[in-house]
């Protein structure tokens, strides 16, 4: 499922209208999150320490976006294009494997 999503994301065209003629008549399909990344709202980014991860997937279940996905090796990773940095994953992680790091922009 993750691979399919990443493929779609790679193929999604970023909707950017440069002139009034490019706009559709009605406000349709604007704001589709495939092309409209919400990850740049973030101040703190979660960083996963795989040495502490026990693959319980509580972070994966709790992520409201959902921006955490399970890699093929069973560890979790964060999709930073959509992670808003809410910190729920870090708070819920029983082994404190996820830490919130201030993001440099």
């Amino acid at each position: 499922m993750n691979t399919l999503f990443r493929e779609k994301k790679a193929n999604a065209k970023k909707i950017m209208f440069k002139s009034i003629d490019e706009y559709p008549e009605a406000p349709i399909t604007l704001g589709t999150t495939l092309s409209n990344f919400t990850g740049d709202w973030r101040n703190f980014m979660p960083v996963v320490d795989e040495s502490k991860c026990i693959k319980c997937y509580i972070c994966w279940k709790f992520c409201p976006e959902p921006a955490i996905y399970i890699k093929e090796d069973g560890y979790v990773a964060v999709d930073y294009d959509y992670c808003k940095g809410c910190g729920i994953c870090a708070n819920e992680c029983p082994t404190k494997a996820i830490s919130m790091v201030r993001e440099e922009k």
Partner: protein
Amino acid sequence: MPKKVISGNYAAAYAAKHARVEVVAAYPITPQTSIIEKIAEFIANGEVENLEYVPVESEHSAMAACIGASAAGARTFTATSAQGLALMHEMLHWAAGARLPVVMVDVNRAMAPPWSVWDDQTDSLAQRDTGWLQFYAENNQEVYDGVLMAFKIGEHEKVNLPVMVIESAFILSHTYDIVDMLEQEEVDEFLPPRKPLYSLTDFDNPFSIGALGTPADYYEFRYKIAKAMEEAKKIIKEVGKEFGEKFGRDYSQMIELYKTEDADIVFMGMGSLMGTVKEAVDIFRSEGYKVGAAKVRWFRPFPREELYELAKSVEGIAVLDRNFSFGQEGILFNEAKGILYNTDANPIMKNYIVGLGGRDLTVNDVRKIASNMKKIIEKGELDKEIDWYHLKR
């Protein structure tokens, strides 16, 4: 062509039937009720095919259902009045913003309190900034013709905006008059099935409507509506002309001019009261006064150019407003004055507030207004700008 003696409300219902509407969602409110009663009767008698009536629990829901149906590509119709229209207000913005050509009949009724079911234009004019086109009908015939044209204009590929057809409470809605209706085949030829701009039932091309429009995009979509409104003026004239050529009743003028060619004084107004004014004009003409009437048929988009042409040749315009914007003046007067400000047309304009809450405006009243206007023009100055004409002094 079949002629029938019917009320304005039945004229609206028959027009919706002949336009082959597919979805009707409405909530009963006096004096609109008999429109949907008649449509329910059509369905019960099996006189219509493919018409879905959606029972709703309020006007807000009625408009929401219409928006959904129209977004799915259906030809959609509803009707309401006063307080019901006010309850729809939020959804009216939605229909126009999403470019959905819903057609609605609004039966003009005064806003409460005091509780009133009688004629007054303030309810529909309070919705003037929602992006709906507004057509004011003078008689039952114009209600019928107006609804048919509303579908054609609203669904036009260059317009795609909702249209309100407005009739007077009781004066039209419940008064029986001869309506020259069209044969179904004639209507089918004039009004082919709707070709939606986009459709939610197009499952191969999914999309979302009206998702977040950030400051980077919102502005452009407003401009698109403004442009479509300007474009609508051309379409209205075209469709009105086509209607005239096919069926003999011409609607190519957005302001209907009645004996204004050589007139010094022109009475301007909207809706059913202009029938009385036209009759008064005939009487004054026979007495040798040079008066005329200008009935504003389309209030949105406003026919700026036509008003300017009219104002160039007359000395005085008496604007009869069956509405009032508290803290300012009559709404039509306000609009008309504003349009002429940057032009070289400079007629004396006076605002008469008449007929609020269903009070009658008689030919004799128009006579008094005419003699008052005549005095003002001879003097060359206004006695007062806004005249609450019926006030018990």
